[in-house]
C-alpha cells in the first residue's frame, strides 16, 4: 500500500528509512533552516534598530505572531500563553510543514499521513496539559477533573468513568487520529481523482474520454482543498492543545 512504501536505506535496522521518513527528514531540515534564517534576521534587525521589515522578515513575523497572538494569547492570556508558546509554535509549524507535503508535486504524501508523528505530538500535548494542571493545582487537578463539582454524589458512578475516558484517553487519541485520518482521506481523494483521469484518458473508449476532463478538474479542486485542510489541521491541532492546557489551568477546579 501507498502508506507503507518500500524501504530505501538502512534495511533491517531500527532506523530503516522509507519514502515518508525521507520526506519527514526533508521537511525537518527545511524548517530548521527557515527558522535559523528568521531568528538571525530578527536579531540583525534588532541590533541595527531597523524596524521596517523586509519581505522575508515580515513573513516570519506574521506567521510567528499568528500562533502567539491569535492562538496562545487569546486562549491562555499573555502570561501563560508565553509560558507554553515554544510547544505551541513547534506543534503548529511541524504539523503545517508535514501536512503541506501532501500537495507538493513529486512528494505527494503528507509526512503526517502515517500515525507515528501525530502520536508523538499528541503525547507531547497530553504530557503538557497534565503537567500544567498538576503544577497549578497539584493532586487536586485529577480529583477535580474526575469528580466535577456540582454533580450529585450518586451520579459519580456514571460521570467518573465518562470523564476519565474523555479526558485522559480520548483526548490524545482523537488528536492523533484526527490529523492522520484527515491526511489519509485527502491523499485517497487525490489518488482517486487523478487515477480516474488517467483511466478515462488512456483506457476508455470514445466519448468516455471527456469524463477525464471532469475528474481532472475535481482533482485540481481537491488539491486546493487539501492546501486549506493542511493549514486548518495545523491550526486545529494547536488550538486544541491550547484549549486542553487552558482547561487544565482553569480555576473552577
Amino acid at each position, binding site marked *: 500500500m501507498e502508506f507503507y512504501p518500500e524501504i530505501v536505506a538502512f534495511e533491517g535496522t531500527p532506523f530503516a528509512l522509507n519514502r515518508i521518513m525521507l520526506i519527514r527528514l526533508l521537511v525537518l531540515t527545511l524548517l530548521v533552516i527557515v527558522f535559523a534564517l528568521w531568528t538571525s534576521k530578527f536579531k540583525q534587525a534588532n541590533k541595527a534598530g531597523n524596524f521596517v521589515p523586509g519581505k522575508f522578515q515580515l513573513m516570519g513575523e506574521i506567521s510567528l505572531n499568528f500562533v502567539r497572538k491569535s492562538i496562545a494569547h487569546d486562549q491562555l492570556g499573555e502570561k501563560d500563553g508565553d509560558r507554553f508558546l515554544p510547544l505551541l509554535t513547534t506543534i503548529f509549524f511541524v504539523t503545517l510543514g508535514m501536512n503541506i507535503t501532501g500537495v507538493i508535486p513529486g512528494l505527494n504524501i503528507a509526512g503526517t499521513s502515517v500515525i507515528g508523528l501525530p502520536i508523538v505530538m499528541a503525547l507531547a500535548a497530553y504530557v503538557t496539559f497534565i503537567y500544567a494542571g498538576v503544577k497549578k493545582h497539584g493532586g487536586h487537578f485529577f480529583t477535580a477533573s474526575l469528580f466535577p463539582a456540582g454533580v450529585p454524589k450518586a451520579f459519580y458512578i456514571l460521570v467518573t468513568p465518562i470523564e476519565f475516558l474523555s479526558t485522559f484517553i480520548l483526548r490524545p487519541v*482523537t488528536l492523533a487520529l484526527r490529523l492522520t485520518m484527515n491526511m489519509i482521506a485527502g491523499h485517497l481523494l487525490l489518488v482517486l481523482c487523478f487515477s480516474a483521469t488517467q483511466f478515462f484518458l488512456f483506457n476508455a473508449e470514445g466519448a468516455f474520454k471527456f469524463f477525464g476532463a471532469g475528474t481532472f478538474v475535481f482533482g485540481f479542486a481537491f488539491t486546493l482543498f487539501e492546501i486549506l485542510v493542511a493549514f486548518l489541521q495545523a491550526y*486545529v491541532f494547536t488550538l486544541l492543545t491550547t484549549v486542553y492546557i487552558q482547561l487544565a489551568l482553569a480555576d473552577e477546579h
Partner: protein
Amino acid sequence: MDVTNIAELTGNLAVVGYGLAAVGPGVGVGLVVSKTIESIARQPELAAKLQVTMWLGIAFTEALALIGLATPFIFA
C-alpha cells in the same frame, strides 16, 4: 418460481457502514456552521471569537467520522 439474479453487487459491506457513519458527523458539522453563521449575522463584531469556537466544535464533531475511517485500519 425460481429466483434469477438481475443485478449483482460485489464488494465490502464496510463501505456502506462508513457511509452511514458519516451521516451523523455531517449533520453535526452542518448544525455547528449554520448556528455560527446565524450568530455572526446577529453580532458581526463577535465574528473572530465565534469562528474559533466553530473550529473547535467542528474538530470535535469531525472526530466521529474519522474514528469510523480508522476502524478498518485497527480491526483489519
